């Protein structure tokens, strides 16, 4: 399917080696990196709990010819993505493991280094690029400080969290992050990651990557339920939350269930000002990749209409292995007005890009 201007809401830029961050660390933390190094909540410091379907979870053709990790070379990203499709804006989500550090202050220093590295090597080098603020989200006061600091650069358009947090994201401990995001006028994104401490399911550790990857859809729903019923959107009415890489077919079912149970059990959360589905449709936005692929491709359009025409924002997930091609991801004809919203307009509204 042809497309006009495209906003790609999920692209991964990568730090090829820790040493690339050294120029952005103080002597204190350079020494820490060299002598101590990464200590993550997950026991797998150099890999994943589950081997991915492809090396570095990336398209096999995305390794830059000049070396380095997929997503580390802007010039090659231009060839494969930014110039290959009519990309007006691309939102970078750098998954460097700063937020996962057990050492809170080191995590904060790494997050700041990643953000400064993004400014110099990405935001200042291509005006189509925007980026997410990396924050040590398990230490929300430090995360809030980094949001205040980094958001001074206009290239940052959202705050980046992962779905498998220590506790559900609606809890009071995370509120300083939302407060800072609202102060900066930024949405908070929750992007799939399988390296954080908790299992992806509510019932423990699964056996296989295929379970881990499927289970992301469940983890995202748990976070949405938590955000709504803990009153985050009542307390922070300006807050927008972007969900990345957790699917979207579950939205109608979750909305029905939330409202039905709220009608019966709402007395437990009497401060909620609206029906739960109202928060879902007003405050939540969802990126499309990995595109839902119903058995009958034509079922996708009615599904999207039920999810809500304003909720979805197209994403490729470049350079990851399950990349969605902007021309081929919809395996059915999507009506032009709906297509335009998903490929472009919804993201412009969410990120306040000039249309």
């Amino acid at each position, binding site marked *: 399917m042809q497309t006009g201007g495209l906003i790609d809401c999920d692209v991964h830029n990568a730090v090829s080696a820790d040493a690339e961050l050294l120029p952005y660390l103080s002597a204190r933390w350079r020494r820490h990196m060299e002598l101590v190094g990464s200590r993550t909540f997950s026991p797998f410091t150099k890999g994943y709990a589950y081997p991915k*379907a492809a090396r570095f979870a990336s*398209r*096999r*053709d995305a390794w830059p010819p000049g070396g380095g990790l997929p997503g580390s070379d802007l010039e090659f990203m231009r060839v494969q993505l930014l110039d290959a499709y009519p990309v007006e804006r691309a939102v970078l989500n750098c998954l460097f493991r700063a937020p996962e550090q057990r050492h809170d202050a080191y995590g904060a220093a790494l997050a700041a280094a990643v953000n400064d590295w993004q400014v110099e090597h990405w935001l200042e080098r291509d005006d189509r690029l925007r980026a997410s603020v990396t924050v040590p989200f398990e230490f929300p006061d430090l995360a809030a400080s980094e949001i205040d600091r980094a958001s001074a650069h206009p290239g940052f358009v959202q705050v980046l969290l992962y779905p498998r947090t220590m506790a559900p994201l609606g809890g009071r401990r995370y509120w300083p992050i939302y407060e800072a995001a609202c102060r900066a006028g930024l949405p908070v994104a929750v992007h799939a990651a399988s390296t954080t401490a908790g299992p992806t399911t509510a019932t423990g550790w699964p056996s296989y990557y295929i379970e881990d990857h499927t289970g992301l859809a469940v983890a995202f729903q748990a976070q949405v339920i938590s955000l709504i019923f803990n009153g985050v959107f009542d307390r922070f009415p300006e807050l927008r939350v972007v969900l990345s890489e957790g699917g979207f077919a579950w939205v109608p079912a979750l909305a029905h269930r939330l409202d039905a149970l709220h009608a019966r059990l709402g007395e437990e959360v009497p401060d909620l000002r609206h029906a739960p589905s109202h928060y879902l449709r007003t405050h939540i936005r969802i990126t499309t990749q990995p595109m839902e692929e119903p058995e009958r491709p034509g079922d996708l359009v009615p599904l999207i209409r039920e999810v809500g025409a304003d909720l979805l924002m197209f994403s490729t997930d470049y350079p990851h292995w399950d990349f969605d091609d902007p021309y081929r991801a919809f395996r059915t004809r999507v009506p032009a007005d709906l297509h335009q919203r998903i490929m472009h307009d919804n993201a412009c509204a969410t990120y306040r890009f000039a249309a």
Partner: protein
Amino acid sequence: MTAPGRAVVVAVVGEIPAGGRKIVDIDGRSVGVFNLGDGFVALRNTCPHEGAPLCEGVLSGALTSPTPGVYHYERRGEILRCPWHQWEFDLRTGRSWVDPDRVRVRHYPVTSDGRHVIVHV
């Protein structure tokens, strides 16, 4: 030997070693030509799923298991795995491993006149 369609010389014999491949452009169509050792095959270099450059993928074999604990790794080098979503295709037929009747990639006849490798498009 004759085959339908227009004949296009894509390589000289010996240029593509057994187990090797060459990706060629035929009137704007990218086509992968593979030497399987006992002959050549040619496939459209576009995955039917999302359009990835299929013929740049890894070649592997097929694992079959008649009963628990017993497995056979067969047809080494004849199964092509897409570089994006890892869908696998049988080089000899162009049919996908997972859904061979419905998911296929265009497959072109290949002949040789003794000196050239010729794809019929």
